[in-house]
């Protein structure tokens, strides 16, 4: 078991009990530092060196507050506000509704749309602010390090904003998916809505949007009125030959139109769901394409450089051929002259 003696164990345990269990292995010597500052101060006083503290204080306070930092911090506080707001209302936003329709924390659709709109405007303003700050950083003439630092700061803020946007888009995707699923499950009976008494496969416990309920109600009312009217008319059929049929026809047409409208509304909702998903994918693709843009630019540069190099190479080769040819001509000439001179000398001698 333990190798140390029993009193060691007790000492160790005492120490653990008395000391707070901090995981810091590093030692905070700030206190030591402050003590050293005091010692140095007293030592300096003893020697007689005084420091002009007041002037420096004023100087420090009036150091120009560069506009960058406070504005960046402002953007961050705004984004945090948005995040808090989204998180606060997240539960209500996403809730699929409860069995009790009297749940007062339920949100209406219009409220949800309002939240969506507000959030989008907010996010847009934030990204505009970031872009603006970036342009300013580019234009301002400061040192390379400060530029790099500010660029990195803006990157951090952008990543933060992206994180918050992801929160929002997740929420929204969940909401849309839920609505689409609901639509699918609670779809009214297709064709022939004029058939009275056809059992409607409506799940009354599910929460419906206001339009849905109203449309249902209207269909129901229409059918009931139709029922009644049919009964009534059946009795008084004799009075008017054309009109009851006409009215019946009109009512049938009415119902048909209503059901068509319903279907169209359903389809529109479906398409909306699909479009949201497609837009998300589109976003991802757009991001990737933008990433590739820089690479393609550089490839373009390289290709342009390569074509120029090839052109120059061609020129060089042409010149070399010319030089070669010229050189050959001179050699030929020289040899011919030599041979002629030989012949001449030979003829001269003999």
């Amino acid at each position, binding site marked *: *078991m*333990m*190798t*140390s*003696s029993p*009193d*060691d164990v007790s000492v*160790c345990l005492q*120490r*653990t009990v008395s*000391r707070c*269990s*901090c*995981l*810091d*292995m*590093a*030692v*905070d*010597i*700030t206190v*030591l*530092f402050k003590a*050293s*500052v005091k*010692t*140095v*101060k007293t030592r*300096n006083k003893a020697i007689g060196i005084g*420091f002009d*503290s007041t002037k*420096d204080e004023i100087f*420090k306070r009036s*150091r120009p*507050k*560069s506009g*960058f*930092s406070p504005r960046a911090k402002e953007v*961050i506080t705004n984004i945090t506000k948005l995040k808090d707001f989204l998180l606060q209302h997240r539960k209500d936003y996403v809730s699929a509704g409860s069995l009790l329709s009297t749940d007062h924390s339920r949100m209406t659709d219009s409220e949800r749309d309002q939240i969506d709109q507000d959030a989008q405007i907010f996010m847009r303003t934030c990204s505009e602010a970031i872009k603006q700050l970036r342009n300013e950083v580019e234009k301002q003439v400061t*040192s*390379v*390090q*400060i530029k*790099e*630092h500010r660029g*990195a*700061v803006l*990157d*951090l*803020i952008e*990543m*933060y904003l992206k994180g*918050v946007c992801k*929160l929002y888009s997740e929420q929204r995707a969940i909401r849309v998916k839920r609505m*689409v699923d609901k639509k*699918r499950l609670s779809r009214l009976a297709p064709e022939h809505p004029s058939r009275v008494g056809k059992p409607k496969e409506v799940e009354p416990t599910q929460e419906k949007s206001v339009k849905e309920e109203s449309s249902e109600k209207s269909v129901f009312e229409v059918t009931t009125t139709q029922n009644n009217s049919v009964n009534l008319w059946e009795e008084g059929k004799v009075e008017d030959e054309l009109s009851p049929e006409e009215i019946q026809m009109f009512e049938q047409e009415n119902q048909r139109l209503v059901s068509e409208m319903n279907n169209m509304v359903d389809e529109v909702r479906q398409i909306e769901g*699909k479009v949201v*998903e497609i837009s998300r*994918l589109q976003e*991802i693709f757009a991001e990737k394409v933008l990433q590739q843009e820089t690479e393609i630019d550089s490839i373009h540069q390289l290709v342009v450089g390569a074509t120029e190099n090839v052109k120059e190479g061609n020129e060089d080769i042409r010149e070399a051929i010319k030089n070669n040819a010229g050189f050959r001509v001179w050699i030929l000439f020289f040899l011919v002259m030599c041979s002629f001179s030989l012949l001449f000398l030979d003829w001269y001698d003999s």
Partner: protein
Amino acid sequence: MATSIREKQTAALKRMLNFNTPPLKNAAAEPVWKVLVYDRFGQDIISPLLSVKELRDMGITLHLLLHSDRDPIPDVPAIYFLMPTEENIDRICQDLRNQLYESYYFNFISAISRSKLEDIASAALAANAVSQVTKVFDQYLNFITLEDDMFILCHQNKELISYHAINRADIQDTDMETIMDTIVDSLFCFFVTLGAVPIIRCPRGNAAEMVAVKLDKKLRENLRDARNSLFTGDGMAAGQFSFQRPLFVLADRNMDMATPLHHTWTYQALIHDVLDFHLNRVMMEEGGATDASSAGARPKKKIKKMYDLTAADRFWQKHKGSPFPEVAESVQEELDTYRAQEDEVKRLKSIMGLEGEDEGAISMLSDNTAKLTSAVSSLPELLEKKRLIDLHTNVATAVLDHIKSRKLDVYFEYEEKLMSKSTLDKSLLDIISDPDAGTPEDKMRLFLIYYITAQQPPSEFDLDQYKKALLDTGCDLSPLTYIKQWKAFTKMAATPANYGNSGVKPMGLFSRVMNTGSQFVMEGVKNLVLKQHNLPVTRILDNLMEMKSHPETDDYRYFDPKMLRGSESSIPRNKNPFQEAIVFVVGGGNYIEYQNLVDYAKGRRVVYGCSELFNASQFIKQLSQLGQK
């Protein structure tokens, strides 16, 4: 201790970078930006553990060297991470005077002395910046962790504590003291970060003993100092009260001189031996650098490439200790899996093309979109995998080129036979005089291993023959002088190290014609199979951990800093085998020993450390310097 030393050090660094408060786990937390200023020591410590991207994620916008030109960046807190040396302190005072940053957090890698603290205090007073100095910390991180279970002391000024510095003939006592102090300081920081007080064992009569005595003293002083002890709180954190203390074995390089010269066959050790590998970073030139035939033609453009071999690279973690042919196969396998996944993604494209006519089936469409989304999101993973495969292909090809040109497999086999004292099938003279087997350095290494492991020294005649052959091939003979001295020295001490019996079974000539995808043609390179054998250091550790009795280790001294009485007794009081051990080699170590320890330590935790990390060529250089004195 469930976490490895690397995780502990990384956690300490992350805490420091978060202004010494524990970092929050909340992913969408507000960003706080800061600037990191370090000196070269700090850079060496941080670079194997945190990548630039991780630094950025933690909010570090700029990371700068202390002794570079830095511009004032107002409104930003600055975190300093440096050693408390004179010049660093001067530069800090200068920074304070120039008012470069808004607030300062000073973190010293090892403990700072009171006088230097007062220097900073007076500079802060002069610049009226005392309120800006927010925090000062002693981080106790003066060591570099390379792997989960391997650490070295320093990389920057390693000549100061190198083998050469410790063993040279003209060393003064004061020099030795400084070297020992540096080593002990780093070891102390290591144990503080680990959070445990070990039991120390060391051999007698060499540098390791001096280190052990000093370390014991330092640990003892710190434990006695009830107010400022560093060993409370952490090691006994909730639920982890381990009665087992780790065993700390100090070894000296002089005990085993053959292993650093040995040619090796495992992946990581090969990279360290053959390529330029420092702090987990490989520097390579690409473009046919080793092709001898291109000497006549215009030299191809050499592109310098740098690769980081990190803990996140799963292939590397799995195969860094495997023999080289296995690595080649595995790279091929990885490439195949990657290709299969790529085809899978491409197939989705065709699916999407056919789909889209079916209106009523929303579910099918949403499935496909879900598939597409998952494929798109898995693309970054695939790209990363491809990058790693490319990296390893390049590195392994470079290593293979070296092996083929220098015939390293022949050397490896021969040296294994020498070290295990089995029969030799070729005479040493043949290999040395063989013109195209390896560089002169390789031959020198082989001969030194022969000389070290020979039971009796070769006769004068043989020795002259060998010397002549070596000189013919262009070797420098000064290492031999030193090794002769060393051999004479150690003969007086214990018996020469026994390298264990091993057998190397070559699987015959292995010629594999690769398919089109692979780039490794291993014809002519023997596929050697390593049999498990124990190097001297591993054997010593085994004896000490398992409390076996062995003439080699019975004589070792025993220190326990926690004991109240500073007894010099060599009787270990613990009769149980240890579960955890830390081995430290004073004078330098290398990856071969590390790999051997890892192979030995199945199920137990063994950490390997050394005062510096050198490969065989660097070691030979140091030996030549020693031999020339």
